[in-house]
C-alpha cells in the first residue's frame, strides 16, 4: 500500500516551504522525498534504524565497523567500487554511525539518482566480505579510534563522562567502541549484525534535491521493492533508572592544554507525538548557554565576572531514548575548576529561582525562527533532519511540526522542564585537568 502526502515544513512563516513527500513500500521501506529545484543536485541517503546502542554486550564498535565494511563490495560490485562509481559521476559518498542509526549517503548530479538507488538496494541485500578486507579495515577503525579518541584528552574525557552519565543504557558505550572489544570483532560478527538489521523494514530512504517524487517512487519500487521484509523486532534497550546520587569524575592528562569542566543531566528526547518538552529544553539550552553575550551563563561568568573564557549549554533531542543536557565551562586563567563549578551552580540556582526575562526569551524565539529559514538554504541538512528523526522513531508529521512547536514554547514551559532536569542529585560533573592542577583541587 503506497501512501503519499505532502507536508509544509514551515508553519511560522508565510513562505513557500520545501515540499516533502512520504510513502512506504510494501516491504516496509519508508521513503521521504524533499524537493529543492534551485540546483540540479541531489542527495540520496539510506538510514538504518540500528546503531551502536543496539550492539550485543562485548561487541562495542560493531555497528560502526559494519558501516566501514559496507564499502567492501557485493556479489556484483567489487571492493571500493561503490565509492569509485559515485566519484566517476562527480559525486561524493560517505556514511556515519550514531547510537541510534547508521546512514549512508551520496551527493551527485540529480540525473544519476537511479544508479545510486540501485547500488544502495544492492548492498542492503548482497554484501560480500573477504576476510583480508575485514582484517585490514579493523586496523583502520583502531587507527580511527587513535585519531578521534586516544590522541585527544577531550574526547577521552567525553567518553568517560558518558560512561558515568549512563549507568544502564548503552548510550554510555562509545560508538567507535572500546579498544579491546574492537580488536576482537570478526567478519562473522559483522555479517550477523548485517543480516539482522539491514533489511527494508528497518530502513528509511531519504532523497532530497532536484528530484521528482513520482520518479523516486518508481526507482525505489524497482530496486528496493523486490527485497523481502524481515519482520524486525522493536528495539528494546535497557533504560536508565532515576538518578538519585550525583556523580563526579576527574580525568588527569598531561596533554591537557586548557582545563575545563563539564556537567550533564539526563533529559528526555523528542518522543513521537510528545516533542513539547524537548522544544522547551532547546530554549533552556539557548537561554542558559547559547550565544555567549546573550545567555545567562555567558553574562554571569564571562561579562559580570571574568571567571570563564567560554561557557556553553547543549541539548540535542534527536535521540531514541533519554539523552543528556550538558554544560561546559572553561575557566579563566587563575580560576580553579571548583570555583568555576560553584559559579555554574550559582547561576543555575538563580535561574531556577528568578526565571527568564521576556526580552531574552523573545530573542531566542526570533533566532530559532530565522534558523528555520536559513536551514532551507541547504537541502542536505534538511535530508539529515528527516533521516535522523525517522530513524529514531518520529513520524514525518512530527518532524514537520517541530519548527511550529518551537514557536509555541512559553517561558513557563521552560521553567517547568528546567526544574525537572536540573536537579542537583541528578548531576554528573567532570573535570578535565592537568597533573599539577589536579593536586591543587
Amino acid at each position, binding site marked *: 500500500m503506497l501512501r503519499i502526502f505532502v507536508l509544509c515544513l514551515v508553519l511560522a512563516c508565510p*513562505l*513557500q516551504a520545501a515540499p516533502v513527500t512520504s510513502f512506504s513500500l510494501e516491504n516496509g521501506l519508508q521513503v521521504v522525498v524533499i524537493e529543492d*529545484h*534551485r*540546483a*540540479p*543536485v541531489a542527495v540520496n541517503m539510506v538510514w538504518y534504524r540500528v546503531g551502536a546502542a543496539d550492539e550485543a554486550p562485548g561487541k562495542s564498535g560493531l555497528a560502526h565497523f559494519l558501516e566501514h565494511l559496507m564499502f567492501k563490495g557485493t556479489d556484483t560490485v567489487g571492493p*571500493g567500487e561503490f*565509492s*569509485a562509481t559515485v*566519484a*566517476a*559521476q*562527480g*559525486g*561524493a559518498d560517505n556514511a556515519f554511525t550514531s547510537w541510534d542509526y547508521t546512514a549512508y549517503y551520496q*551527493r*551527485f*548530479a*540529480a*540525473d*544519476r539518482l537511479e544508479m545510486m538507488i540501485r547500488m544502495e538496494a544492492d548492498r542492503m541485500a548482497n554484501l560480500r566480505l573477504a576476510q583480508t578486507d575485514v582484517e*585490514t*579495515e579493523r*586496523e*583502520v577503525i583502531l*587507527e*580511527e579510534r*587513535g*585519531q578521534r579518541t*586516544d*590522541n585527544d584528552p577531550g574526547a577521552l574525557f567525553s567518553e568517560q563522562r558518558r560512561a558515568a552519565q549512563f549507568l544502564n543504557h548503552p548510550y554510555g558505550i562509545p560508538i567507535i567502541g572500546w579498544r579491546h572489544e574492537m580488536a576482537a570483532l570478526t567478519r562473522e560478527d559483522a555479517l550477523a549484525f548485517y543480516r539482522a538489521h539491514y533489511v527494508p523494514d528497518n530502513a528509511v530512504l531519504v532523497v532530497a*534535491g532536484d528530484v521528482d517524487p513520482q520518479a523516486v517512487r518508481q526507482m525505489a519500487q524497482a530496486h528496493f521493492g523486490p527485497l523481502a521484509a524481515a519482520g524486525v523486532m522493536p528495539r528494546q534497550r535497557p533504560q536508565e533508572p532515576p538518578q538519585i546520587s550525583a556523580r563526579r569524575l576527574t580525568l588527569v592528562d*598531561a*596533554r*591537557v*592544554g*586548557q582545563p575545563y569542566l563539564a556537567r550533564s543531566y539526563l533529559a528526555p528526547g523528542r518522543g513521537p507525538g510528545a516533542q513539547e518538552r524537548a522544544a522547551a529544553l532547546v530554549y533552556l539550552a539557548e537561554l542558559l548557554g547559547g*550565544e*555567549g*553575550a*546573550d545567555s545567562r551563563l555567558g*553574562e554571569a561568568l564571562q*561579562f559580570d565576572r*571574568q571567571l570563564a*573564557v*567560554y561557557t556553553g549549554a547543549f541539548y540535542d533531542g534527536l535521540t531514541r531514548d533519554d539523552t543528556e543536557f550538558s554544560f561546559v565551562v*572553561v575557566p579563566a*586563567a587563575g580560576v580553579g575548576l571548583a570555583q568555576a563549578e560553584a559559579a555554574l551552580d550559582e547561576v543555575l540556582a538563580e535561574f531556577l529561582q528568578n526565571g527568564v526575562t521576556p*526580552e531574552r526569551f523573545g*530573542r531566542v524565539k*526570533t*533566532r530559532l525562527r*530565522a534558523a528555520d*529559514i*536559513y536551514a*532551507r*538554504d*541547504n*537541502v542536505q541538512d534538511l535530508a539529515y533532519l528527516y533521516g535522523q528523526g525517522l530513524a529514531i522513531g518520529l513520524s514525518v508529521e512530527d518532524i514537520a511540526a517541530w519548527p511550529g512547536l518551537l514557536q509555541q514554547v512559553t517561558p513557563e514551559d521552560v521553567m517547568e522542564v528546567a526544574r525537572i532536569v536540573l536537579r542537583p542529585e541528578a548531576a554528573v560533573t567532570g573535570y578535565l585537568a592537568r597533573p599539577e592542577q589536579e593536586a591543587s583541587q
Partner: protein
Amino acid sequence: MIRFFALVLMLASSLMLASPLRAEIAVQEITSPGGVQAWLVESHDIPFLALEIRFRGGGSLDAPGKRGAINLMTALLEEGAGQRDARAFARARDELAASFRFRASQDAVAVSARVLTENRAAALEVLRQALTEPRFDSDAVERVRAQVLAGLRAGEADPNTIAANRFAELAFGGHPYGSALDGTPDSVAALTRADLQEAKARAMARDRLFVAAAGDITAAELGPLLDALFAGLPEAGAPQPGPADLSLPGGETVIPFETPQSVALFGQRGLAREHPDFFTAFVINDALGAGNFSSRLMQEVRVKRGLTYGVYSYLAPMDHAAMIYGRVASANGRIAEAIGVIRQEWRRMAGEGMTAQELEQVKTYLTGAYPLRFDGNANIARILVGMQMEGLDPAYIATRNDRIRAVTVEDVGRVAREWLDPAGLHFVVVGQPEGLKGAE
C-alpha cells in the same frame, strides 16, 4: 531583467558516462553608486541574503612585534560597536535574527553575513557598525584576549597545532607565514587598544575589499546597501608582505610528545594559482591524495595496509607562497611505514605520472563535481568571493571544466617530474614515532 539560472544540465546518453555538465550561474558584476564592486547572484526562493566580504592580507599584515593583533582585532569586531557595548550588540543582532561571522586567516579578514529580507537594511546597519565603528572597549579586549590565550594554551598541547606551527617556522622563517596568526602568549599579552586600532587600519580598507552576494536581493537594491556598509572604511591599508621564500629541505623533523598516535604533516613547494601548469598540478594532486577513496595515498596507506584512518594532500596556493601539504596519523609503531609509503607514492607519481585511464577517471570526477558546488546561497557567495580573490572573472565558471579536460597524459608526466620532489618532501612528526631518525 536578469534571472537566476542554477545549473543547466546537459544530459548524457548513458548514465554510466559522466555527462558534460556545465555550470551556468548568472553572475552580475555590479558597481554601486559609491564605487564598491561586487558580484551578485539573485535567487528569490528563500527570503534571505548571504553576503561574503574579504579584505586581502589578513594576519600577514600584522605590524612587526604585534603578532596576533589582526586576529584579536577581528574577534573583537562583534564585541561592541557604535553606541552598543558587546552585550547590546549581540542583542541587536539577535533581535534581527542576523548571523555574522568574523575571522582572520593568513591572507584575509573574512566576514560572512546572513540577513533576512524582512529587516535587511537594519541588520546591515548593525554590521556596518561592526566593520567601521568597533569600540575595542577595555573589558571586551580583556575578555577576548583571555579566550585567545586559552586557545594558545590548548594548542601548545595539541599535536596538530604543534606540528603546524613547527612546519610553518621551518618553511617560512621570519615571514608572517612562518608563525601562527593568533600570535604567542607574550605577543598577545602585550597588545594594546592602540595596537588593535592600528591593526584594523592596516587590514580593513577599501583598496583590498572583495564582495559577493547571493540571495533575495536585486542589483539595484544591493548597491546603496554596499555603499552604506563600507563608506566609513579608509581608502588604503598596509602594504602586503613580499614573497615568502621556502627554506625547507627534505627530511623528517620529530617533535617528541607523549601520545599513542603520531601526527605527521608533510609538504613541499607547490604551484601558484597563476602558473600555467596549475591545472595539471590540480589534477595530479587529485589522483595522488585529494579527499576521496580512489586517491593513491588513501588506497596505499589506508585501504591496502590499514595504516591510518585518513591521509590526504592538498594544494595551497597562498598569496605569497605556493605549497602542497598533506597529513597522516598512525600509531607510533606504524607511522614510519606510513611515511615510507607516502614517499614511495611521491616517487611513483614523479617517475611514472598517470595512465590515460587514471587521468580520465580524475577528469570525470573533477568536472562532474564542480557544478555540484553551487548549491545554496551561502555556498555560491563563498565561491564567488574566492574567485575574485584569485583574480578570476565570472566567465571562468563556464570554462573551468574545459581547462581540466585540456590536461594531457604528457602534461601530467612532465609536471609531475618537474614539480614533485620526493627528496624535498618534509615531514614534521609529533608523537613517539618508532624507527624515524628526524632531527630534534
